[in-house]
């Protein structure tokens, strides 16, 4: 392992700025998100908290131009967006958010490659920060990893007070650190301290779900309409639990046009909490709110494992922290009905 003194991090960030757009956790307008480092502010070095807006926005921006178009005499001409994304380095991503990116990679790699997303993904270095102070509503340890898991980052940093211990996880990470000034070998004492920081963060996590028990109960709970109606009763369908979810990736596609006939096609985050999301001229499979709440839970805990072999949730706790009506997904998951087969009889005939 290596280390760098906090006072020298500015130099490291400046080195990275030569090769990358450097994104750091930034506070803005009462929220926080990964934003381009201004070259000055280093307050984020001591904050070590998850941003409100998850770093998925660095790969799937909330609004993204897919292509432009203009009308010429002999018809429309498309102006494809630059397919090669600029190189970016995201500094201070927590293990849960890095895991979330690895999770949504599966969707964007599946069958048809999503050039926009994958181009950003391929041109990104993830500099992780071991989580030292999880929130009360975090439950990452229940999802098979933990606040210091380095599986999904290129470089892992651990805050040991006056320094960061550096673990180079991937070749890409090694390359990014190579030749950096002020990066020195960590001492055994540093490594021990890093270990203690990681362990103490893990010990702070008290919220738990039992994914085995949940997997057992989900099939029968699906048809328990009254259970879902009760859960959904207080939901206001605001969508915040999806917009701020680091693994929610659904999007809409929309066109904008100017008077001269030129314009662009955009995609923007969309949300299964909205009835219009699935509404068709004649029917809507999820017009009822309880179906939409159920969709949110099942997409993460049932459909995603079915399709990709992994739960589509990282336990980051954002959906709990930001919910205006205090819905707690872990309460729902921990209280799934044990199930009776009789309910399946109510299943509708297919259309």
């Amino acid at each position: 392992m290596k280390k760098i003194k906090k006072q020298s991090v500015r130099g490291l960030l400046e080195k990275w700025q030569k090769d990358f757009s450097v994104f750091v956790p930034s506070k803005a307008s009462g929220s926080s998100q990964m934003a381009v480092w201004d070259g000055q502010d280093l307050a984020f070095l001591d904050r070590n908290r998850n941003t409100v807006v998850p770093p998925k926005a660095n790969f799937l921006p909330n609004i993204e131009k897919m292509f432009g178009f203009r009308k010429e005499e002999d018809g429309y001409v498309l102006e494809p967006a630059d397919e090669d994304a600029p190189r970016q380095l995201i500094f201070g991503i927590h293990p849960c958010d890095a895991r979330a990116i690895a999770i949504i990679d599966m969707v964007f790699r599946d069958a048809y490659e999503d050039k926009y997303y994958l181009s950003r993904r391929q041109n990104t270095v993830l500099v992780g920060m071991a989580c030292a102070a999880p929130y009360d509503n975090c439950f990452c340890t229940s999802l098979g990893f933990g606040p210091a898991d380095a599986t999904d980052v290129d470089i892992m940093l651990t805050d040991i007070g006056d320094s960061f211990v550096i673990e180079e996880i991937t070749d890409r990470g090694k390359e990014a650190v190579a030749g950096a000034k002020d990066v020195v070998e960590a001492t055994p004492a540093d490594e021990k301290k890093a270990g203690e920081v990681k362990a103490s963060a893990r010990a702070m996590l008290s919220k738990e779900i039992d994914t085995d028990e949940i997997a057992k109960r989900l099939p029968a709970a699906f048809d328990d309409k009254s259970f879902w109606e009760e859960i959904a009763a207080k939901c206001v369908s605001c969508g915040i639990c999806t917009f701020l979810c680091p693994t929610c990736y659904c999007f809409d596609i929309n066109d904008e046009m100017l008077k001269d006939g030129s314009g662009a096609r955009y995609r923007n985050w969309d949300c299964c909490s909205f009835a219009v999301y699935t509404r068709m001229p004649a029917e809507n499979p999820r017009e009822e709110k309880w179906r939409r709440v159920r969709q949110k839970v099942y997409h993460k805990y049932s459909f995603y494992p079915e399709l990709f072999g992994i739960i589509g949730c990282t336990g980051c706790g954002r959906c709990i922290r930001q919910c205006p009506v205090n819905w707690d997904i872990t309460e729902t998951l921990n209280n799934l009905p044990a199930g009776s087969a009789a309910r399946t009889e109510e299943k509708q005939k297919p259309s």
Partner: protein
Amino acid sequence: MTIADISHRKRYLAEGNAYLPHIAVIEKIINETPTVKTFHFNFKDEKLRKEFTFESGQFGEYSILGVGEATFCVSSSPTRMDHLECAVARVGKVTNALHRLGVGAEIGFRGPFGNSFPLDYMAGKDLVFVAGGIGLAPLRSLIWNVLDNRAKYGKVDIIYGARTPRDLCFKYDLEAWEKDSSVNMTTTVDREAPDWTGNVGFVPAVTEKVAPSAKNAVAIVCGPPIMIRFTFPVLEKLGFTPAQMITTLEKRMKCGIGKCGRCNIGEIYVCRDGPVFSYEEIKSFSSDEV
């Protein structure tokens, strides 16, 4: 039989970005009903025009640049590649804008996406096509596909209905199939209407009356959800097993390639795993949001 099989899927033709539409030109417009028009179109790019292939049942994302995209099947047959066709009911922003376009206007097309009707499974069997309203559009692609390879299939029954005589789509096809001695064509409307001398009654009831044999047969059903819902039990009564019944599902879609999220029925994504499913598969879905 698993129709929702990846081997059944045709890959997007163009390399690279599946979100970029191909520009196509409208060559002809047919007024099918007061609310439905069929558009004949061809790609502007000569090379694409020659190389483009699709299979009956597949769909595309059609766009009017600046207005947006909407999802329709290709309603023409891959056996007739002189041009492509799509039939569009005027219901929303994009379809209204499409209805205002004239011959020569340019549209965007992404596709073909999704799986297709299982021609191999249907070969050598008697075929029963049951359609209602604009639901004939995807079946029409398949029917012409079958009729253009007539020797490969057994008897062909077509049962088609609409609310009123004016709501019957593809009247020129209905006439052609009436005349075709290898086709047993039944057309019906929901209620008595002036100058209508044909069958009267809902599609499921008329299907029961026509009573096609289930022996070595496949039924392909497409129409409004309510029609499909009532037709499956009739076919079951006639002896069709769920594996012998095929339909194509409709869901709101945006991307067409399994990313944008909204067309799921549980873990099934209609754009990626469908839109063609057997009733057996539908019955096995874990979700009731069909």
